[in-house]
């Protein structure tokens, strides 16, 4: 038997999960990030019981995929109890879900979390009275501080079923009765299912293996009931729940003037048309300073130059050369494109410090509740390209790591929006490492050059998204977003979250790094005549690189390596610039092309994983020529006009 943690997003479900099971899930302030299901065990009366954390839902009437998953878990037969976690500040919404869950007949315990915030807002809830009215145990908690958790533990696995029933208009009650009669043998929760069917949920979503005759009969009942009302049944019934909820609220909740704090003022400024932008750029600057100086500067230097450059790699090279007699294998491990000296070194020495600092910065943004505000600010711009504000999150994430950002496009509601956002990421959102190197490269050119690079990239990004928006079928989804209050992040939660993501990164990225290096290494080892396969590829690319883009022929290697790692390519360019092998125009063109050029191999695999090989190959087939065309045109304009860069 399992216990399901159920509740709205942003109510601290994951924190309670962590407190109960000792394992921490991905806690987030952004509505809807708990996409994957986490489960853990908790000891109750000396037996281990499984607890499953479900995606956030506001009601059983669901809109998105993850909400449906949550509902499915609730309806699974081995769920012995629902631990309903709720925001005490929002009793109205809480009661709505309590009343809906009551219809399932599953034992429930109600956790009123964030009691401190309710108190600050001037809200007092008569917990005991609420418990009596609902017939449930009601546990007030402040989960981030661990308050109330021990009390909750005592009420796990108790068998109290809610003792409230929402009265609906007669016609609906009759309809419910007929449906319950039909469903009684098909589901353990007939009344809850009957309500959802009347509210317009397709029968096939709720009951498996139903005969077409029965389905027809059910549809007939629904349309008969609907005849009695001018409004859709979903509205009529939601009204009944809301009225009952209001009735209960009047009995248990009192509200007085809340306390205004400094944070409210900051809150207002974050979405202000002018100050909001200033705050946004300020935060951006802070993040880059943190990731750029601490991550890219100090930590990468330490890891690459000292830890790997002077300790690990020489040591590994010695061992390999001493114990492995075959030259090709030695080359594969510690050669020019060796899996240890390049693949592993890259992953641990360069990228790990960068993503660690970035994950930490990002966790602060998430836990503070800033991201939904950023989504709100970006809504207008993104609506022009068929996305809405929520897409800000993956795009911002993309400046950290495109691979992780591609995965996070899941939070968008339609496939079309997910594909547009993924295309933007694959095309031209530079990851933190690449961005860092490009910023370094820009030190050699004038400010005008820098403006041209970023101007071209951003404009092309918006242009492509705009075109994709026109080409791809389907509507854009509605922008309704809950904005959680700004909160002071807790250090312990930040570190936990960062650690979980690093674990994820290491597990997902290192195999890909090794695989990528392996392939390049093999290509450099395969000799055809006097040249290697890699040499042939480079020769093949030369007409484009030299002829069209006006770059020196060595830059071809940078372009190809760019596929292995986005920053790998620009790093090659950076090296050439330092050696004085590049003109300023070449630096600008090279930076633009490498930014727009194919995503790294890890992102590519992630696109395959999320959207299938067809979409992934299609994107590459578009992006590669597109980047070259933009580079060619830019090169022509800059050369012909003789723009002083």
């Amino acid at each position, binding site marked *: 038997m399992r216990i399901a943690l159920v509740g709205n997003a942003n109510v601290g479900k994951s924190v309670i999960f962590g407190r109960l099971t000792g394992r921490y899930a991905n806690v987030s302030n952004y509505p809807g990030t708990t996409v994957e299901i986490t489960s853990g065990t908790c000891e109750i009366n000396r037996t281990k019981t499984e607890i499953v954390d479900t995606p956030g839902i506001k009601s059983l009437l669901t809109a998105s995929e993850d909400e449906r998953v949550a509902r499915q878990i609730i309806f699974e037969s081995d769920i012995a109890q629902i631990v309903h976690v709720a925001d005490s500040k*929002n009793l109205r919404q809480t009661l709505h879900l309590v009343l809906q869950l009551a219809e399932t007949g599953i034992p429930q315990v109600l956790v009123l979390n964030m009691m401190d915030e309710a108190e600050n807002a001037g809200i007092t809830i008569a917990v005991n009275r609420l418990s009596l009215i609902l017939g449930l145990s009601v546990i007030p908690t402040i989960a981030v501080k661990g308050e109330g958790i021990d009390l909750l533990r005592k009420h796990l696995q108790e068998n109290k079923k809610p003792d409230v029933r929402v009265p609906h208009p007669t016609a609906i009650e009759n309809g419910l009765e007929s449906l319950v009669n039909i469903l009684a043998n098909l589901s353990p929760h007939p009344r809850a299912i009957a309500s959802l069917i009347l509210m317009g949920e397709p029968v096939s979503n709720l009951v498996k293996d139903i005969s077409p005759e029965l389905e027809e009969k059910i549809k007939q009942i629904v349309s008969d009931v609907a005849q009695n*009302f001018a409004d859709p049944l979903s509205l009529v019934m939601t009204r009944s729940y809301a009225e009952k909820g209001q009735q209960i609220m009047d009995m248990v909740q009192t509200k007085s003037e809340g306390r205004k704090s400094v944070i409210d003022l900051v809150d207002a400024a974050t*979405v202000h048309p002018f100050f909001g932008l200033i705050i946004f750029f300020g935060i951006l600057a802070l993040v880059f300073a943190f990731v750029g100086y601490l991550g890219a500067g100090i930590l990468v230097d330490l890891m690459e130059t000292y830890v790997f450059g002077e300790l690990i790699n020489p040591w590994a090279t010695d061992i390999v050369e001493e114990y492995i007699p075959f030259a090709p294998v030695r080359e594969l491990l510690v050669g020019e494109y060796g899996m240890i000296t390049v693949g592993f070194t890259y992953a641990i020495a360069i990228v790990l410090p960068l993503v660690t600092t970035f994950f930490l910065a990002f966790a602060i943004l998430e836990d503070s509740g800033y991201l*939904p505000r950023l989504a709100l600010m970006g809504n207008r711009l993104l609506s022009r390209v068929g996305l809405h504000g929520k897409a800000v999150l993956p795009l911002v994430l993309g400046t950290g790591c495109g691979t992780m950002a591609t995965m996070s496009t899941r939070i968008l509601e339609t496939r079309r929006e997910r594909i547009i956002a993924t295309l933007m990421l694959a095309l031209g959102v530079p990851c933190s490492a690449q961005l860092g190197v490009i910023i370094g490269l820009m030190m050699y050119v004038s400010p005008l050059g820098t403006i041209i690079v970023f101007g071209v990239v951003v404009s092309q990004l918006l242009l492509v998204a705009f075109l994709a928006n026109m080409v791809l079928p389907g509507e854009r989804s509605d922008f*309704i977003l809950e904005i959680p209050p700004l909160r002071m992040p807790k250090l312990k939660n930040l570190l936990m979250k960062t650690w979980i993501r690093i674990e994820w990164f290491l597990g997902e990225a290192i195999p890909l790094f090794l695989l990528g290096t392996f392939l390049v290494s093999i290509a450099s080892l395969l000799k055809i005549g006097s040249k290697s396969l890699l040499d042939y590829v480079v020769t093949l690319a030369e007409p484009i690189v030299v002829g069209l883009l006006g770059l020196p022929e060595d830059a071809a290697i940078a372009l190809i390596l760019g596929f292995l790692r986005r920053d790998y390519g620009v790093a090659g360019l950076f090296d050439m610039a330092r050696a004085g092998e590049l003109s300023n125009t070449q630096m600008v063109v090279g930076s633009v092309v490498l930014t727009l050029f194919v995503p790294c191999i890890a992102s590519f695999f992630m696109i395959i994983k999320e959207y299938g090989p067809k979409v992934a190959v299609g994107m590459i087939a578009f992006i590669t020529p597109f980047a070259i065309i933009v580079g060619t045109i830019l090169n022509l304009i800059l050369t012909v006009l003789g723009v002083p860069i």
Partner: protein
Amino acid sequence: MDQKKVRSKLVKSVVSIAFDEEELLEVLWVNLIEGNKLKCPLESIDIGPELEHFDLETALDSLVQKKVITLSGEDKEVALTPEGQHLAEQAVRRHRLSERLFKDVLQARQEELEGASCKFEHILTPGIEENVCTLLGHPTHCPHGRSIPSGHCCRDRRFQTESAILPLSQISESKEIEVAYISTRQPKRLNKLLSFGILPGTRIKLEKKSPALILKLDETILALDKLIAKEIFCRRVNGE
């Protein structure tokens, strides 16, 4: 030329259309125009319960004589003349506006709705009809979800009377309102609004209108696209 004069001329020319005949015209308009047909056999017209009691033949003859409909061919195919179409459209408009008025402003119950609006629509003269339409915030759909033919006032957006019901998108910042009805016909959008607790009777404070609409429901802050706000009709709360 003054549009009002044209309209009053049209009204005067057929001033003798009886209430029953008007009901019949509405039925024909719904069958033909909303059914996307130019004409159709009399038999296939769905008359509905309200007209069962009266003498169809006489009423049809009278309408033919007044040149608002034509009957032709063996199966008596009925069609509306341009003038008949205009009159019928106006009658349908008055009927559906009446329904909105009774439901949203006077908050009539479901069972009172049909009877009351049936009587009221005949009292509405063109001038009053425009005022009612403005009062209701130029609604586009009746409570049953059928579209309300637009009038001149909707196109000009003249606010002679202060509206009692307005779409959320037209409410000014930091006003408190109560949702009167939601006009969306997209079930997904409606469900989403419902799940956020936005339904008739909900009290909302409109905090800001930029960069998107920012609403406060109890302690919850929601951001909403203007596009959706156009489909949420609200009434003011006392003192606002």
